[in-house]
């Protein structure tokens, strides 16, 4: 009995060790599906719709990567993660990539051994309060009770903001956005703080969004982007350049509607290189030559994803702002496809 248990353990451990050594790309291709970590539910960024299909801006990135790698945007297993579980899930290999409003910071990149593959949303931390409190500035929040998701950079920014302005506050730690919403609406906290985009998304789901104001102060830089584990640079490249392809596609005017037509060949060499009718950029990454066509047709280019999920015509109503193309005065700037 003892021996068989032992042998079993050895066998399982050996298998686990064997799996860990294969490259992420091979693993994903063998599995036939991408394991993508997302939030537990933040409307507009990642949330299951009425049919149980995951939808949203971050989800769009996952689907684009799945389309580029496997040719099928629906070949994604979405793994909901909380602020506390996301890094463990990625480090342990439970997920292949994380697209979960995660802020790119030095320590996460260097010390936690992750690799950020770009920024898909430039954000900053804001505060939301009920209108009836009559607060018009974050500097009036001395003594307030603040709902805060634990294990996030917002938690640290919050502490710094109140300390540097010589104010006190009472943190109410919560795990998920849904929990925060419930606590905030019940009045268990006066203020909810998270990334401004998250606040807008949360407010859009309220019964009466006009009864809540988002304060003008943005207290931090929060560049949000997808990330992968350190050490597998080929996989990191795939995720990075898929995101870049979405951004470049918007700049070059490639949309989900015209991508098939443009893929046949155009007189713009950069479009030709990217869409595979000239050279073999896909082959250099170990993908098929139509990887970018697949990624763009999955959910459209960056601009289409933005407008459909969180743009001004959605209930969330976020303006492009910093997230406009560099040609429009924003920060989005994809390196050339060459």
């Amino acid at each position, binding site marked *: 009995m*003892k*021996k068989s248990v*032992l042998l079993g*353990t*050895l066998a399982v*451990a050996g298998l686990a*060790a064997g799996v*860990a050594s294969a490259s992420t790309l091979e693993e994903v291709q063998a599995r036939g599906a991408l394991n993508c970590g997302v939030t537990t539910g933040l409307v507009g960024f990642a949330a299951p719709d009425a049919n149980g299909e995951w939808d949203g801006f971050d989800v769009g990135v996952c689907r684009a990567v799945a389309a580029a790698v496997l040719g099928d945007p629906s070949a994604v297993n979405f793994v909901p993660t909380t*602020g*506390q579980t996301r*890094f*463990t899930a990625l*480090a342990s290999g439970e997920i292949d990539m994380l697209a979960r409003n995660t802020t790119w910071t030095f*320590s*996460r990149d260097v*010390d*936690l*051994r992750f690799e950020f593959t770009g920024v898909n949303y430039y954000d900053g931390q804001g505060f939301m309060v009920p209108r*009836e*409190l009559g607060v018009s500035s974050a500097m009036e*929040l*001395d*003594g*307030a*009770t603040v709902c805060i998701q*634990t*294990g996030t950079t917002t*938690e*640290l920014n*919050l*502490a*710094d903001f109140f*300390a540097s302005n010589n104010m006190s*506050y*009472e*943190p*109410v*730690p*919560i*795990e998920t956005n849904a929990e925060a919403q419930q*606590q905030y609406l*019940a*009045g*268990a*906290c*006066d203020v909810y703080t998270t990334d401004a985009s998250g606040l807008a998304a949360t407010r859009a789901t309220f019964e009466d969004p006009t009864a809540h104001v988002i304060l003008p102060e943005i207290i931090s830089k929060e560049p949000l982007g997808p990330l992968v*584990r*350190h*050490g597998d640079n080929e996989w990191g490249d795939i995720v990075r350049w898929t995101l870049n392809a979405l951004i470049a596609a918007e700049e070059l005017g490639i949309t989900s509607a015209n991508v098939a037509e443009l893929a046949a060949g155009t007189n713009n060499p950069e479009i030709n290189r990217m869409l595979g009718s000239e050279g073999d950029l896909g082959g250099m990454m170990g993908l098929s030559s139509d990887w970018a066509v697949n990624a763009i047709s999955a959910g459209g280019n960056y601009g289409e994803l933005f407008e459909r999920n969180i743009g001004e015509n959605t209930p969330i109503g976020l303006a492009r702002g910093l997230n406009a193309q560099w040609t429009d005065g924003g920060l989005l700037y994809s390196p050339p496809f060459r």
Partner: protein
Amino acid sequence: MTIQVVALLLIALAFYWLGHNIVSNLRQLGKDFDFGFLWSRSGYDINQRLIEYSNNSTHGRAALVGILNTMLVAALGCALATILGVIAGVLRLSKNWIVARLMTVYVEGFRNIPLLLWIILIFAIMTEATPQPRDFRGDNPDASMILFDSVAVTNRGIFIPSPVWGDGAGLLLIVFALSLAAIWAFRRYAHKRQEATGDILPVFPVSLGLFLVPTLLVYFAFSAAISRDQYPLMGVGGQQGATLEQFVEENRNPSICAIPDTAVVNLSTELRAIGQRADIVSVSSAAQMQESLQSGDCVLAVMPPDVAATMAGSLDGVDLVTLGQTIDRGRPLQFERPQLAGFNFEGGIQLRNSLIALWFALSLYTGAFIAEIVRAGILAVSRGQTEAAFALGLQPSRTMNLVILPQALRVIIPPLISQYLNLTKNSSLAIAVGYMDVRSTLGGITINQTGRELEGMLLLGLFYLVLSLLISGVMNIYNTSVKLKER
């Protein structure tokens, strides 16, 4: 024998292999094994802290805050669970049909539904069914405080008055300690006398008298002596003889220097009454207070009259004025009651909803198990014991206390230890309601911010192991003292 040696070797090999596997996997991930993170700045805040802690403290200190929070809820839980369990266990044996059935419903209901559901249910009731602090505001508020305006039940927790020690508290404590010693001596004397002569002295009334009378006398005497003392308020700038309200009107959110005592509490009460948060900087001496006023760290100070006399006019370049209002010096022991100021209730002690939900759920759940243990213990004492005691003429209460319970305890204690251990370990469900126990600080935020999963989890496991062994050790000592002694 050979098989045992082989098995031992195999097990040792397996452990070696597991260890090696961890080390090589960590190396592959490029991670080292290092506890240095415990001494780096944590950067996050914790709402419930039993010791001094801020976001400038270390991760180690954050872990300590969490450890104390875990121990607090475990101790509170064990105490309440024992009380509930004993009551329910005894009542379940009651001859009254309704009482016995009710207890059956309690026991079966709580021990057959998962603990997590109870925690979340109690928390949801606490946050959804109670008023927000802002409902207490206004001339005709939706909610009001209870028990002579001393307790506020809100959806952020229950605010209760907190005791504050003032001048003369030391004397009060000495008198109280002496009273306790006198009670102990008297009971000893009464016990000896009863054994010698059979006379029963009125132990309870005398004890109660000794417990209360001397302390109360000293308290009132001391209060009468000092309670009329008034401490002056010194402000920087403003008008000579202004009231506190006028001063606050001119200086929004003034920072206040004071040597912590009851006068500070009285000042805070006055401030909150005019809707101002009390932002008090503690100083340790008159000299330090003078320095703070001079440097502008605080603009208002409360101090004894003699200190005020020396300070007036001694500050260079600072226009120090005496306000027209004075503050009571206070009593040896005072209660600071919660008041609405700013966004929230301030002053007093806040029992957060997370603590209450966790505490009650753990107690009710474990209490149901303890009730069954107590019932089993009582049923284990044979009926003959009760009958024999009655035959000797013992009253029912004495029969219970002197005959039944001491014997039942021998059966009750060992399973009770396991229940205490269960409760302690179950307290790690705190994360469900955001209670900042060690699982949430060290095992949650710290691990997340530093990425030290292995180290954090090992420390967490070690802590629960040590705590459980400690509880078990202490309870075993108690068990040895009550168990059947063979002579």
